[in-house]
């Protein structure tokens, strides 16, 4: 059951450049547990889309199965959505992206959905540098099936039932780096200041943008001993940088200390503006990100922020060299070679 929120449009609510107010980016009322991290991420998506003045119908939102994968109903109700099957969102997004290169594709997944059943598709979407934003709402457990450990649960993390996890966690951000993902970030559902600009930057990135967002499950994995609880994350979080996203032609407003700041221009003219908190880290050097991540992990810390960006890579359309016009807009005239050409084909088989 889902409930449409009554949308009360206050005349004073500020319209963005494309004429929408913030509530236009919302979806139906969430049916997740009160306090679930996923809802905060939905909120950040709404915020980001509103702020960058996205026209909602220019985005398609896709997901697998899980509490996290339900969230696309809770934001952007003017966008087409697809709640598909468990672990297979990447392949559906690949097909959708092939059909129309002009839309923005936002994929939402869970750690169960991505790190277990969906591992293969995740890896290969990265390999193809599919132009999409891929958000994992990472709670270290299977929320919707009642709290089993997932593959991102940390070694030794204690479950609600009291048992220690004996397996090494899969670090999805580390994995994405190893696999040459062209944009890798990590954030925390509780840190909107970091998350909102990160989502904006991810949307501006013309390739695979991966966001691993720690998102506590209040019902099944927010207990003492869990390394994915609100309190544990708050206590162990650290950041690569102070981070902002500046849309094309907007002015940079924040002043960063000289020397530690960096400005990265993206494909569409927008910019990422950041002040490094880690001196040896360089956002465009993949191996420095790997190093930095490793160092944090060794200290038991959770490194968040932008980890790596490759501002110059070809997405799958580029690799395949497809035409600029979306394939789903090509007409029969443009596609069908016609009877004459077929006669030639026939002749070649005689």
């Amino acid at each position, binding site marked *: *059951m*889902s409930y449409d929120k009554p949308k009360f449009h206050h005349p004073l609510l500020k319209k963005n450049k494309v004429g929408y107010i913030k509530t236009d980016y919302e979806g139906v009322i969430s049916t997740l547990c009160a306090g679930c991290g996923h809802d905060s991420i939905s909120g950040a998506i709404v915020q980001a889309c509103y702020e960058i003045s996205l*026209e*909602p*119908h*220019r985005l*398609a939102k*896709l997901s697998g199965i899980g509490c996290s994968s339900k969230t*696309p*109903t809770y934001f952007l109700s*003017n*966008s*087409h*959505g*697809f*709640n*598909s*099957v468990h672990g*297979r969102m*990447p*392949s*559906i997004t*690949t*097909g*959708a*992206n*092939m*059909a*129309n290169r*002009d*839309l923005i594709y936002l994929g939402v997944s869970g750690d169960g959905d991505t790190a277990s059943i969906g591992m*293969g*598709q995740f*890896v*290969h979407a990265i390999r*193809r540098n599919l132009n999409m934003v891929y958000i994992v709402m990472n709670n270290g457990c299977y929320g919707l099936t009642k709290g089993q450990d997932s593959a991102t649960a940390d070694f030794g993390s204690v479950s609600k039932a009291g048992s220690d996890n004996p397996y090494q966690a899969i670090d999805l951000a580390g994995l994405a780096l190893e696999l040459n993902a062209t944009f890798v970030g990590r954030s925390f559902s509780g840190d909107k200041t970091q998350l909102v600009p990160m989502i904006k930057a991810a949307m501006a990135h013309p390739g695979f943008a991966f966001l691993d967002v720690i998102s506590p499950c209040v019902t099944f994995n927010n207990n003492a001993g869990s390394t994915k609880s609100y309190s544990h994350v708050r206590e162990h979080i650290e950041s690569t940088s102070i981070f902002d996203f500046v849309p094309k032609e907007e002015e940079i407003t924040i002043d960063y200390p000289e020397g530690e700041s960096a400005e990265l221009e993206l494909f569409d003219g927008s910019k990422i503006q950041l002040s490094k908190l880690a001196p040896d880290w360089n956002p465009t050097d993949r191996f420095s990100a790997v190093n930095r991540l490793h160092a944090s992990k060794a200290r038991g810390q959770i490194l968040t922020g932008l980890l790596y960006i490759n501002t110059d890579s070809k997405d*799958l*359309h580029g690799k*395949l*060299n*497809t*035409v600029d016009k*979306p*394939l*789903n807009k*090509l007409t*029969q005239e*443009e*596609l*069908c*070679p*016609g*009877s004459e*050409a*077929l*006669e030639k*084909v*026939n002749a070649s*088989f*005689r």
Partner: protein
Amino acid sequence: MKQEVVVNDLVIRFSNVNGTGSASANEMFAKSIFRMGIPVTPKNIFPSNIQGLPTWYEVRVSEKGYLGRRDGIDLLVGVNPQTLKRDINSIRPGGYFVYDSSKKLHEEYIRADINYIGIPMIQLAMEHYAKPRLQQLLKNIIYVGAVVTLLDIELEVVKQVIAEQFEKKPKLIPANYQALELGVNYVKENLEYPLNIRLKRIDAVGDSIMIDGNTACALGAIYAGATLMAWYPITPSTSVAKAFETYCKKMRIDAETGKKKYAFVQAEDELAAIGMVIGGNWNGARSFTATSGAGVSLMNEFIGLSYFAEIPVVLINVERGGPSTGMPTRTQQADIISSAYASHGDTKHVLLFPSTPAECFEHTVKCFDLADRLQTTIMLISDLDLGMNNHMSPPLKWDDSQKYDLGKVLSAEDLEEMTEPFGRYLDVDGDAIPYRTIPGTHPTLGSFFTRGTSHDEYAKYSELPEVYLRNVDRLAQKWDTAKTLVPAPEFYQEESKNSIGLIFFGTTVYAAVEAMMMLKEEGIQLDAMRVKAFPFHQEVEDFIAAHEQLIVVEQNRDAQFRTLLINELELNPARLLSVLNYDGTPITAHHITKHIKNQLTATV
């Protein structure tokens, strides 16, 4: 062993080792016969391996145009020592065994009732070529030269075929010609020729072409406007992908920019392949995949999603020998039930069964129209025999006035003109097919949420029993709509006259038509119907109703097609007899006639 001269009616088999280039030599041989205007079918019987295992190439020549396999080999060229015994035993009494006489044939291989023809193939090759690889390759051309002469095939035709084959590497032509002549001359100088079995130019192929079904499917997809193919390599469907890519490179490059008007994606597995197809079709680009065997099994979950969320999918299943990895390089029609009812829960899927390459083309086009119209999975059920072997076929046909049926898709204008709110799963027209919208169509109208969970007419999640019932009952009703849209069956008589009706589908047609003729000659008259689609067209029901006894011929163990007929048409099983062939080789007319006669005696 004096025999009558038999013209244009024979079966020749080449027994080789794979990876030695024999397939291409044997193909040129078959093509030459076709060029002489004589109906011919080659069948390549190859192992699931790249190099060094037995492979056979069988060529049936039939002036009457019977294109199925036939038992009883008239001439066998045997150059594979591993299978010598078996090969020699497969020749019909009075037939010919052509062998490499560079080494003497051992006593144990001598049969009194066949004729031995020795050609010193490897010796000739070694005498004329230095490189071992060349010796191996040209040995094949040497035996072609010999057999061509023995059978009185026109040498000029063979040379022409060779020239075309090496069009892009013309340097190779002289060596091949030379090898050919070596074979020809050896026969001319040392043996009696032509044999009592021989060929003669006629004019019986008309405007036919020689093409494999997979290439025809790929061309069908191109003509149907498919812009996304997502696939994973698996024999025997891989060549659909290969042909799609090849012809797209010729037919689908934007002239100005050199860019591609298609996306060709090798997926990481079959689950991803069909997922991409679902994504592509959801987003309004005609998308398809091709697979076989295990691939279809892996796609089960997604096929259910396509059914329930009503997303078009075109899936080409080139069947191979099952179960499991089974016999990946052999043919069967054994994915009928698993395709028709694929996926958990109450599901049914539309299947089309082409019989010829021309139909592979035509039905593939039809698949896209049906998928868009019915918003569900449409499977083209082909098989290895049809897909990978060259078949003499009517030419591929395209009518330029033919328009794609893109089904019920609402445009921005449509949405704006609507007076009622858009309901993605609302049956507005009474045909149980709802309207859909493509993402990005309109800023504020027409967006909806696609899901594999139970949903109401407006695509909203619902667990209410009555909402669920409305939806699945509509899907059942849509199935009835499908019956009116699928291709009607083909009949082999003006009107039904006999009490017994023969039913078959797909590649069985070749043997079935011949079998009917054979039976007719023995005074057994049958009506016949070739079914082209599931669900069954009304005319299928009518034909069955008009016959007391039906015989269903199919190439699987469990009579799966018969099950479909009984189940969907509520037939009394007692009325349906079966003729089955499932050893991995294409069915023969002889097999059909034998079993029909057995069945008829048993039931009388």
